[in-house]
Every structure is written in structure tokens, then in C-alpha cells.
């Protein structure tokens, strides 16, 4: 209802996506709604931390054991068995809103990722000596998002348009020649894959090498004296890929995220919230893509709390609990994720 205070910022235009961490397990939390929407003009800076520990191997709607997947390789298959991927995302955001209707938001993610895999191991090869590991901490792909919410007088409905740029290191190895492609791709640092001079999967690099278009919309309103409701949707699709050579091409799958939730607004100091986040991720494409293990549908419940420390200073923290997942192939998936952030408007 109240444009000024119903919430804080459409400037937090887009949650820092971690979709390239692996298939369908990225952060789907709407940080817009976490901090709230606003039509206040001015600047805003924010910092968000996301923790995603992909420690459970899943297929379809259930968990699957490593030996069961290894049995595929025993029968002559070639199915990678990933052990663990731990992601830390630290995303700095700068937003500027010249008016109540328009805003633009730049988000710079810093990605810290540890990954381990058995490769295409058989049942008798699921040992630590066959485990290959990698670790990096680098800049990811930045996002630039513009928002417009002047379509209706209340300014509680907004449209978003943006791009994800290939600023993060990306790449892999040409499947035919083994030559390195991309820009400073990460290599395995331990285990058999390191001994073989192998790069980490293209989907696990800091960036995707693609330029993506992002479109989205959001709507929020007070539904009672104590509750705001909101719904947001966002669609992201790659439109240009730097990895476009034969035997060395890669295009990340399109991703749709829809979030809806309630904010309990009884007290301006602390605002509990519950989000439901749905993500559909399409299959990655190209010779460097893990085509069989990169698509799926996921639903999270995300309870959280936003605190106002000062008039324009807010902190928030959320956990995400997966309610449902239907993953294509075999993918590492988190049992829970955590998000925390701080924002300051001036």
C-alpha cells in the first residue's frame, strides 16, 4: 500500500543467481522481497552472502547412492559421480534510482567454490584416491538490471530488464583436441583429474562465458494490516556464447524462477517472511555441457527475518529448505541453503 514504506527496494532487482554452480541447485531466493520493494529515489548499496553446500546426489525426485550410480559405469556406462560442491557467493550490489519509477542495479558476485568428483568411477573405485578436487575464489558474472514500476499509480508492480555479462572466468577443453578454451578456466588441483591436466566442468567455472538477457516482473501489496503479499517472476536466457566453437561450445540452460510469499509487517523493526521459490532449469547445451545432468524443477520454502538497524540500514537472513525436486540425470543437491545480507540506502 504505502509506496515509501511497504518495503525497501526494487533496486535489489535480482537475487544473485548461482544457477551455474550446478544445474538446478542455485539460489532462488528473491532478495527483492527479502528486503522489500520501494519507490524511493536515491542510492543503495548492499552485500549478500549465500551458502550452498551440494552434498546429496539425487536423481528424479529422490536421493541416490554413489554405488548405485557407479553400477552404471560397471555396466559400461560413463556417468560422472560428483562427490561434493560447496559454494559461497559474496555479492556486492550498487543501485541507483533517479526517480520513483526507474532504477538500475549492478551486482558483482565473488564466487568461492570447492568441488570434488570421482569421475566416471566404477563400484570398486569410490575411494579417496580416485577423488579429484578443485578450489577457487574469483569474480563471477556481473548483472545489470533495470526496473520500471511506473505502470500503475501505486507503483507496486514493476518490470525488470537486464543482462548478465561474461565477466567471470570460463571455459574448458576442446573435446577433440584437448586444447584449453575460454578465459582462464579453473583446473583440478588434486587427484587423477589434476594429474591429467583437466579443467573443471564448464558449468562449475566462475562464469558461463555467455551474455544472458533477463526479464522479470514483480507485484506486491498489503493484504491486511499486518501482512504484505508478493509474487515475482524472472526468466534468464543466454543470447550470445563466447564458447561457440565446434567441440568446444557451451550454452547454459534457460532458467525460470517464480517466488511468492508473505511478509509479516506488524513491526517496522523486524519483519518475518516466508517465501516459496520455484525454479525450472532447462538443459545446458553444447559439447562442453553436461547435457544429461543439468535440468530440473525445484521448489524451496524460505523462511527468513529482516531487521531494521537504522532508518535506512537493514539486515536479513534466510534459509532455504527444498520441498520438492525433480532433477534430470544425477545432480548434487543441497539439503538446505543459507542467505544473509545487509543493505544501506542514502
Amino acid at each position, binding site marked *: 500500500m504505502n*509506496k515509501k514504506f511497504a518495503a525497501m527496494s526494487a533496486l535489489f532487482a535480482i537475487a544473485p543467481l548461482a544457477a551455474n554452480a550446478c544445474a538446478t541447485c542455485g539460489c532462488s531466493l528473491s532478495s527483492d522481497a527479502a528486503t522489500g520493494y520501494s519507490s524511493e529515489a536515491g542510492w543503495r548499496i548492499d552485500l549478500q552472502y549465500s551458502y550452498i553446500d551440494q552434498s546429496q546426489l539425487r536423481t528424479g525426485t529422490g536421493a541416490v547412492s554413489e554405488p548405485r550410480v557407479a553400477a552404471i559405469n560397471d555396466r559400461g556406462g560413463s556417468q560422472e559421480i560428483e562427490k561434493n560442491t560447496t559454494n559461497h557467493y559474496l555479492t556486492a550490489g550498487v543501485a541507483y534510482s533517479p526517480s520513483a519509477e526507474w532504477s538500475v542495479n549492478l551486482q558483482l558476485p565473488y564466487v568461492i567454490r570447492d568441488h570434488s568428483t570421482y569421475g566416471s568411477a566404477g563400484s570398486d573405485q569410490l575411494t579417496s584416491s580416485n577423488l579429484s578436487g578443485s578450489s577457487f575464489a574469483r569474480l563471477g558474472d556481473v548483472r545489470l538490471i533495470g526496473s520500471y514500476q511506473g505502470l500503475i499509480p501505486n507503483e507496486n508492480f514493476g518490470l525488470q530488464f537486464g543482462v548478465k555479462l561474461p565477466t567471470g572466468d570460463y571455459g574448458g577443453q576442446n573435446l577433440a583436441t584437448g586444447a584449453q578454451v575460454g578465459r582462464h578456466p579453473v583446473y583440478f588441483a588434486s587427484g587423477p583429474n589434476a594429474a591429467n591436466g583437466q579443467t573443471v566442468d564448464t558449468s562449475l567455472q566462475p562464469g558461463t562465458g555467455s551474455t544472458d538477457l533477463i526479464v522479470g516482473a514483480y507485484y506486491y501489496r498489503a493484504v491486511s494490516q499486518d501482512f504484505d503479499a508478493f509474487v515475482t517472476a524472472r526468466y534468464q536466457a543466454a543470447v550470445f556464447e563466447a564458447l561457440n566453437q565446434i567441440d568446444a561450445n557451451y550454452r547454459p540452460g534457460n532458467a525460470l524462477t517464480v517466488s511468492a510469499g508473505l511478509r509479516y509487517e*506488524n513491526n517496522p523493526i523486524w519483519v518475518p517472511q516466508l517465501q516459496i521459490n520455484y525454479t525450472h532449469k532447462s538443459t545446458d547445451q553444447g559439447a562442453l555441457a553436461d547435457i544429461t545432468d543439468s535440468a530440473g524443477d525445484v521448489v524451496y520454502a524460505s523462511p527468513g527475518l529482516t531487521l531494521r538497524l537504522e532508518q535506512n540500514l537493514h539486515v536479513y537472513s534466510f534459509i532455504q529448505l527444498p520441498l520438492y525436486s525433480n532433477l534430470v540425470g544425477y545432480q548434487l543437491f543441497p539439503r538446505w541453503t543459507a542467505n544473509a545480507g545487509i543493505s544501506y540506502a542514502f
Partner: protein
Amino acid sequence: MRSKFLLALFLAMLSLSAAANDVEIGRAAPSLTLRTLDGHSISTDSLRGKVVILHFWATWCVPCQVELPLLTAYQKSHADQGLVVLGFSLDGANNLPQVRKMASTLNFPVGLLDSAWAGGYGRMWRLPVSFVIDRNGILRHDGWQDDQEPLSQETLDREVTPLLF
């Protein structure tokens, strides 16, 4: 286990909504202070002996455009009977020029509410909304109990005018 946790969380949120505001007809009206556009402060406590209408509005609120002229006319015709109207705008500071323009057409004091949470009146979650306080500081009209139709002359005549005699 996880679904029970989420259900408990949701129920806890609902149970918290019991104390949304301190407004109750027939009881002392919560105190509230208007900080006017020209820098003055007017507290409802200082208006004991007057009949006070607290009116919450915004420039972007369409129904407010109907109520504000009505309140201006009503204030003009009943000012000598001790009627005071206080206008609380929920516009942001970036809308101040529009608020001033609107306020120039009104004959009662106007100010920006510095938060959507108006003390004991709770969060201003819909607009317009009005409250009426009698000469003894007792709440006589609770806008939260209104349907969302604009305030009418009939409502003013029925609920406010008797308080002026």
C-alpha cells in the same frame, strides 16, 4: 518434520497478528503527532476539547482525491464548532512537491508521516483511512472498520456532526 516446522512458523506469524493496533471505539484514542509541512508539530493530546479527524492519504491514491475536497468543505463549515482535521500524507519525500501542491488546496494542516506505522493506529496498509476523536479524547470512528468506499458526506453527518454539538 520439515513441513511441521514450516506450518508452526506460519501459525506463529498468524498468531502475532492479534495486536495489529490499539484502536477501539469508546476507548481513549492513541496519541499521534502531525509534523506539518511548515515545520510545526500538532499532537492529538493538545487538541483535547476539539473534535479531531485524523485523515491518512497520498497523492497517488485515487479515492483520496474524492475525500480530500469533501473534508476541506466539511472543515470549513464546522471549524467554528471546534472541528480540527489533521492530514497525514504517506507520500515519500520525493513526492513533496506534489504533496505541497495538494496541501495548498486544503484548509487543514498536512504533513508527511515518517513511517507507515502510525503508532497505536497500526500500519497504514490501505488508503484513505480516517479516525475520529471526540472532545474527551475518546475514539468515535475507526477507519479500519470501514469498507473501502470513500468517506461520504452522509458518514460525516452521521458520525461526526453529532459530536460537534
